[in-house]
């Protein structure tokens, strides 16, 4: 029967193409501590759910003897599958085929699956493991990158876009991940940079390793390009699977609702926070104390640690937490923390995730480096993001809410729906120490004992202004609550905000200060 012959032929062709770069190249990949592209897809998706497309696509390179080379799948695997039985689109660059280098057809495959993902309104996961542009294909490679960036931008805020960096990702290639929502990196495997160590050495004579220049921790801690850091690929895949439980499949949906869980009983919420506003604590303990199952999924854990962002659930529904972290840099706002929080707020707003803000910050970080780094411009991103967001916005002021930072941290004035304050809250134009120096300058300067007078005036200011009641008397905060009532208030305020409508003027788009 000829049918059978055809089927056998198809199977043979498939098997051959699925080998990618062949045994030797796969051995090399494994020796680098890396999984193959196919293994990675399998590890992320539901079992047996992956369907591959464009397996038989061939490259179009015709220069430098490229026409004689067979590159299976042209170095990238694309397809669809499911996660938790919900459809997703995925692509994985195959480093075993010509170093995963990007040529025209390679890029066409990626843009094909991106177009599908956007049309079908399903999340897109991109696994990056590529030596960069395929030089032999010249300007066609550049065209390919550009077409990917264009689609990343069009899909932004419509479908979730997740980038997983599991190998080198250099030159133009880094800009696709940078345009996506979440970037995952793995220690010793992920490398991202615009110009590599080789170029730096030839121009400057400076020797730097790939890991030091653009390794996983560099991007997690210094640059803020990466959102999730893992020690192994397996840990990374678990992080992806966890993240996806918190987010909706597209911007017209809400995140999946989970069964309600009470927080795990532990230290009482009052015990976590020192009453003295100069003493630190870990704000994440407060987030856990109010979240379902005390489950808090932190994003960008290592970058700008003075602000904490991430997902949790309240009564089964996803919320985005934005919280000052007194444990690091006293919880000040600065360039990096403003940038970090602003982007997350915009993510939550785009994907219908309510925002809960926990505030305890002494103001902006003083210093020439901050001013010259543009803290005005970066700080403004935070004001913009909060003001722009139309999802439910709830703020709890725990202790310090001073000055410009008070305004920035989702104050009533930027459109917060509910603002609660603990009785320990200090809502004032600045901290008592700074304020006393200015308001009572004359008295302090003229006093016989200026230091003593200063202390006296600080106390005076503290008694009068370092509390939540002045702001409450103006209606700037809605309710002064006992700390133990925090979760109950969050539950109720989010419930009330369930059908929130908050229109904005018609426009093409705003011009945020980025």
């Amino acid at each position: 029967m000829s049918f059978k012959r055809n089927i056998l032929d198809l199977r043979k062709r498939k098997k051959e193409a699925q080998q990618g770069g062949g045994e030797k190249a796969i051995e090399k990949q494994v020796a680098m501590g890396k999984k193959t592209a196919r293994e990675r897809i399998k590890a992320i998706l539901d079992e047996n759910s992956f369907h591959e497309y464009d397996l038989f696509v061939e490259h179009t390179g015709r220069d430098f003897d490229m026409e004689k080379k067979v590159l299976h799948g042209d170095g990238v695997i694309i397809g669809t599958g499911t996660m938790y039985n919900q459809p997703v689109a995925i692509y994985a660059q195959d480093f075993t085929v010509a170093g995963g280098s990007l040529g025209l057809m390679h890029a066409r495959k990626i843009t094909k699956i991106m177009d599908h993902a956007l049309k079908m309104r399903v999340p897109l996961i991109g696994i990056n493991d590529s030596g960069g542009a395929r030089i032999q294909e010249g300007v066609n490679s550049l065209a390919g990158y550009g077409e990917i960036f264009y689609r990343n931008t069009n899909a932004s805020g419509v479908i979730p876009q997740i980038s997983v960096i599991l190998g080198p990702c250099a030159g133009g290639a880094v800009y696709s991940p940078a345009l996506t929502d979440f970037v995952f990196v793995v220690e010793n495997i992920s490398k991202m940079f615009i110009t590599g160590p080789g170029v730096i050495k030839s121009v400057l004579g400076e020797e730097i390793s790939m890991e030091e220049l653009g390794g996983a921790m560099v991007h997690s801690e210094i640059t803020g390009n990466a959102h999730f850091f893992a020690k192994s690929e397996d840990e990374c895949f678990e992080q992806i699977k966890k993240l996806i439980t918190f987010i909706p499949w597209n911007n017209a949906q809400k995140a999946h609702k989970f069964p309600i869980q009470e927080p795990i009983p532990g230290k009482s919420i009052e015990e976590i926070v020192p009453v003295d506003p100069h003493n630190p604590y870990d704000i994440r303990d407060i987030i856990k104390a109010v979240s379902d199952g005390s489950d808090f999924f932190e994003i960008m854990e290592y970058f700008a640690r003075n602000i904490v962002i991430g997902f949790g659930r309240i009564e089964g529904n996803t919320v985005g937490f934005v919280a000052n972290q007194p444990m690091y840099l006293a919880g000040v706002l600065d360039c990096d923390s403003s940038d970090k929080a602003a982007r997350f707020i915009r993510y939550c707003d785009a994907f219908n995730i309510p925002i809960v803000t926990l505030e305890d910050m002494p103001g902006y970080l003083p210093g020439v480096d901050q001013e010259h780094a543009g803290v005005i411009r970066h700080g403004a991103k935070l004001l913009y993001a909060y003001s722009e967001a139309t999802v439910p916005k709830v703020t709890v002021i725990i202790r310090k809410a001073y000055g410009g930072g008070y305004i920035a941290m989702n104050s009533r004035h930027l459109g917060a729906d509910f603002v609660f304050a603990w009785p320990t809250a200090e809502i004032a134009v600045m901290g008592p120490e700074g304020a006393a120096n200015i308001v009572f300058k004359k008295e302090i300067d003229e006093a016989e004992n200026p230091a003593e007078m200063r202390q006296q005036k600080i106390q005076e200011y503290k008694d009068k202004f370092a509390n939540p009641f002045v702001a409450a008397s103006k209606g700037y905060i809605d309710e002064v609550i006992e700390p133990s009532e925090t979760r109950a208030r969050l539950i109720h305020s989010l419930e009330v905000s369930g059908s929130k409508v908050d229109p904005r003027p018609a426009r093409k788009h705003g011009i945020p200060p980025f």
Partner: protein
Amino acid sequence: MEESNSKYQVFIVNSAKYLTLTTPKFDKRKKWQKLDPKEVRSFIPGSIIEVFAKPGQRLKAGEVILTLEAMKMYTKVTMPFDGVIKSIEVSKGNRIPKDTLLATIE
């Protein structure tokens, strides 16, 4: 409370002292330094192609001190004002990073 606070540093914001931890990025930040107009520094990394000026030489504003190649461009580094070259800190062929001292003016 005092005991467990020993790992924390004092951090001053608007005259108030807070106990807190710092981050590696914060610790590594560059201290600001006032620029000295008598120091000519590289604004871009590159290679020294040619040095024209010599120590002791009197130059007018705009006259060429040296040529720096950076990003495939030859850039003339010129005198910012009339003056005498005190020292030349680089020589032909040197590869230099950004902000390298190239020359000083008396």
